[in-house]
């Protein structure tokens, strides 16, 4: 029993709550488009972070800390709002500072270097900075399992609320576009070679996706009162074998949904890479005829913890879906209560998150 109480998100779509504007929703009418095939996050001014500390932070640390500190109501601590632990998933957090430090090493021939970027380059800098700024002495962990890093944090949170009923936890996924990382992944063929401006990501019919970044944070507990949604199940799988993947999805749905029912909405991680399309279609084919199918990677881009953005989106969906999200809309009107998020990372890492929203 894992319940989501609060959410916040820094993304390329300006999903960050601005002062006085209340909680940001996902009712985006005109999505921001990629520039040079990159969807860079719209960062806030990070008012809660002291300037002297902010200057030393890498972008992923800034986004992670900023999203965590912005959780609505965090200024008024209560049992639910003061988490007993911090769990972060990041695929490439720290990469940018690692490369900066690496360049110092080579450029100065291993001379006397400044340690700042080395200390910031450890992937646990995001979780530890949140702990430091919130004076949180509780559980603190960082998962770095590439495309399943955020899901690992969610699974850990589910165990924590089982072990400590009444406690709440901050869990999130954070990644930044590191120029160096982008270059590696580009040369490995994970991003599109052609310019995407003016084109629809999903109809390109070419290999690769577009790069993205962001930070999504959640306050979780085992208590249903005032929850936004319940995480009914999380599954991770490493496989490129379609029958294996299909069997895993089937079993997951049978286990977590009432017999004979299927999700109201499938939020698919389809990313415009024509080599991965078959995998996503395999999951779509398992849905009911009246399951709405929506996509999100044109909003956040592709990155290892994009599923955290998808979870934020699922928690904050407006009643009427903006057209750009929709891949398949059944004729019958639908209330989106049960949402399945299916995501792949680099074809071999798969995850399923099943959500039941409180209506």
């Amino acid at each position: 029993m894992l319940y989501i109480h609060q959410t916040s998100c820094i993304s390329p779509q300006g999903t960050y709550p601005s002062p006085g504007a209340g909680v940001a929703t996902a009712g985006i009418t005109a999505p921001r488009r990629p520039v040079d095939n990159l969807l860079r996050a719209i960062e806030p001014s990070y008012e809660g972070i002291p300037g002297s500390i902010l200057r030393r932070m890498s972008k992923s640390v800034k986004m992670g800390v900023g999203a965590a500190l912005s959780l609505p109501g965090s200024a008024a601590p209560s049992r639910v709002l003061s988490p007993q632990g911090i769990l972060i998933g990041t695929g490439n957090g720290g990469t940018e500072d690692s490369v900066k430090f690496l360049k110092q090493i080579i450029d100065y021939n291993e001379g006397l270097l400044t340690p700042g970027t080395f200390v910031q380059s450890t992937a646990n800098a995001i979780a530890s900075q949140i702990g430091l700024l919130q004076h949180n002495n509780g559980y603190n962990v960082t998962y770095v399992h590439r495309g399943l890093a955020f899901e690992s944090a969610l699974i850990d949170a589910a165990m924590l609320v089982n072990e400590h009923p009444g406690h709440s936890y901050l869990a999130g996924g954070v990644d930044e576009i590191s120029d160096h990382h982008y270059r590696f992944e580009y040369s490995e063929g994970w991003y599109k070679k052609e310019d995407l401006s003016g084109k629809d990501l999903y109809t390109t019919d070419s290999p690769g996706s577009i790069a993205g970044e962001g930070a999504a944070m959640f306050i979780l507990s085992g208590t249903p009162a005032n929850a936004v949604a319940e995480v009914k199940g999380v599954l991770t799988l490493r496989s490129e074998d379609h029958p294996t993947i299909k069997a895993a999805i089937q079993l997951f749905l049978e286990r977590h949904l009432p017999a004979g029912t299927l999700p109201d909405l499938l939020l698919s991680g389809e990313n415009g890479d024509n080599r991965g399309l078959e995998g996503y279609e395999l999951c779509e084919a398992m849905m009911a005829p009246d399951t709405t199918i929506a996509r999100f990677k044109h909003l956040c881009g592709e990155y290892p913890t994009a599923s955290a953005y998808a979870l934020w989106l699922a928690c904050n969906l407006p009643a009427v879906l903006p057209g750009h999200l929709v891949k398949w809309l059944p004729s019958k009107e639908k209330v989106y209560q049960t949402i399945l998020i299916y995501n792949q990372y680099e074809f071999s890492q798969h995850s399923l998150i099943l959500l039941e929203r409180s209506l």
Partner: protein
Amino acid sequence: MSRVFITGMGIISAVGNSLAENRSALKAGKAGIILSRHLPTRYAGILPFGEVLIATDELKEKFEVTDPGITRTTLLALHAFTEAIADAGLTDRELRDPTTVLVGATTVGGMCLTDELYRDTIGSCEGSAYLSSYDCASVHMYLQDRYHMQGFATTINTACSSSANAIQFGARLIRNGLASRAIVGGTDSLAKFTINGFNALQILSTGHCRPFDRDRSGLNLGEGAAFLVLEGEDARASDPRSASAAVGHGRNLDARASDPRSASAAAGKKIYAELTGYCNTNDAFHPSALSAQGNGPYLAMRGALQSAGMNAQQIDFINTHGTATENNDEAESRAMVRLFGEPPPFVSTKSYTGHTLGASGAIEAVFSALSLEHQEIYASLNFEQPIPDIGLRPVQAYGTYPLHHVMSNSFGFGGNCTSLIFSKVN
């Protein structure tokens, strides 16, 4: 809640390439800290390191690895992993069982390829064979693929406490009914990257490190890997596909063991020790230093006692974090005094292996389990004078002791502190 037992261990470090070699060096008080000339750094021959004395190519040959993208970090992990699964007598079928999970830890990952990474970073070429090997996950995805493991797998990086957290996480997956068996551990190799990082922080000693000594002057970096096979006493795992499928059901899931023979995974096996307590806390003081009073370490040790249902007097021995930096040893000492009053016998085995970063928690868990199995304490090396106004002295000679409960500490950058408690099983 299921009890969690260690049924197999594997280790490679500066003092030996196997469990037996490591124990024999520890008994003999023989450190592995040397002035190496092999490392690709200008500090080779100048600063002492705890180096594993097998070349990367030799490791590749031993395991018939031909893939050029496999790094030294991964090969060290493979070495320890192979020994651990053989020691536990795990069959291929048990390794492939979806209720067998893999929880690994590393901080260096593929960054051991500092020079290659640099070339790939500045180069305009198509990139080297190492492109997908630079991250930490690559290590455990390789192990997963090599052994066709179908269960849940993940990678933790909480700096120098990484593999202690991998052990804790694996044990919790078993206790929550999400796994029958967890293969847990950590690996890190000596890298130009970390050598220069710690050197920039000015915490590398020019001589052999001297944990808890008044005149200690920093740590020696080391490399190595250790893996432990954890098995539940009543492991009835949940789901044939993946442990994580059960999330949301907690312990009340409709337990369905995929492999009837795993119904009691640890039954009838050799048991080194039981993992009875664990706690992860954050010092929340400074990105690269512990608070003077050791709040994070104190809370981790206290929390581990609470989770084990023990009082401080029941701990017979502590394998400390004991890096021999000015900051760590003082903070850890003060935390031990706060919690224990007069602390039980303690040592730092980093005086043998050096500080193996993400691997150290698992390496020292193996040493703690060996201490329990053989009822012995290995001498802490290079200690002469206690820290003034604290006055603690580590155990300085090998000896046999009646040991029931042993604590192992691991603390890291970012304030990540973890304590584990291992207990003797009769």
